[in-house]
């Protein structure tokens, strides 16, 4: 294992983690923090925040960068939307991020469960904002319409990497489809903020990143996250490099110059890390 750079050190407090983990267990909920082995789990759980992963912990895809287990999908839990809302209330979250395992087995890709969860949060936690971090739902407009109609403040879908590495890193997704999801959602309801993110360190070049930024921006996307790829295990896509904090600062400057409204770019920036900051920043301008 290559030696970790200084900027990849995180704090971990077992007691703080246990508290949030117990709440999730009691309500039969999953978090992507745990399932994806997120390096920020210790920090976020200590701050009593987390990102809910609805539709079960088993994913129907097996992307080479991702730590979420690929396996037989679980039945959709009808109690889950209300349990998410109750957990959000207990944690006193001002901004809830909902994501999912990709459910290619469901006709609507899980869209209805997203919509129900958004509605439950509206009912139980009035004033709380919601971000839906969705899969590509096979690019199906009918599925996307269901999520859009639930009107989350932010609709997030990650492109994950540059065009050239898509087939290697995300075998069942495509670049064009992911950009199409962002474009469709923005066109359908321009009042919803759209957001995406990608990783560096998978083997991409600077020129490819530059083109990626242009392609994302062309969809009308408002918010961007850029973070370091961290190889979950030796069986995953090999790490090509650790980008430095200075590299991330440079990507941020470039993205803002091109026209993104908010950019979170740092080694440990993740799609939902401090997501409320992006929303507050952009909402002021709205």
């Amino acid at each position: 294992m290559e030696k970790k750079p200084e900027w990849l050190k995180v704090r971990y407090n077992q007691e703080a983690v246990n508290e949030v983990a117990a709440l999730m267990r009691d309500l039969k909920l999953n978090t992507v923090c745990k399932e994806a082995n997120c390096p920020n789990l210790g920090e976020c759980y200590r701050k009593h925040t987390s990102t809910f992963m609805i539709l079960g912990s088993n994913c129907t895809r097996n992307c080479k960068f991702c730590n979420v287990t690929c396996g037989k999908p679980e039945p959709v839990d009808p109690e889950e939307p209300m349990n998410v809302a109750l957990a959000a209330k207990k944690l006193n979250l001002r901004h809830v991020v909902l994501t999912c395992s990709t459910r290619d087995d469901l006709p609507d890709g899980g869209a209805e469960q997203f919509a129900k969860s958004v509605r439950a949060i509206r009912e139980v936690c009035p004033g709380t904002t919601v971000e839906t971090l969705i899969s590509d739902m096979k690019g199906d407009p009918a599925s996307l319409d269901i999520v859009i109609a639930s009107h989350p403040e932010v609709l997030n879908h990650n492109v994950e990497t540059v065009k050239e590495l898509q087939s290697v890193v995300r075998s069942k997704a495509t670049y064009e489809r992911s950009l199409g999801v962002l474009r469709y959602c923005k066109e359908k309801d321009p009042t919803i903020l759209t957001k995406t993110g990608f990783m560096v360190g998978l083997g991409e070049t600077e020129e490819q990143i530059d083109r990626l930024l242009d392609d994302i921006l062309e969809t009308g996307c408002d918010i961007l996250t850029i973070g370091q790829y961290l190889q979950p295990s030796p069986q995953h896509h090999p790490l090509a490099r650790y980008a430095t904090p200075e590299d991330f600062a440079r990507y941020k400057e470039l993205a803002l110059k091109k026209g993104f409204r908010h950019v979170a770019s740092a080694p440990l920036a993740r799609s939902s890390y401090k997501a409320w900051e992006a929303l507050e920043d952009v909402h002021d301008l709205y």
Partner: protein
Amino acid sequence: MEKELTMPKLRPEMESGVLCAWLKEEGDVVSAGEPIYEIETDKVVNQIEATESGVLKKQLIEEGDTVPVSSPVAILETK
């Protein structure tokens, strides 16, 4: 009162961990929330915080040692 500090389970499939560095020496005063040692996982280096204040009485393992989850790594003397 003596309290055993144990190797945390940092991820569901983790069975053991490598303590890569001690951040406190024997005899050092430790405040709750201060990091005591580091464990490297596939993704990052985790600085493990003390959940109680006290004095680090004994380091039970050495830097570089691999220890099963829940096994003792140190003894903290708490009030």
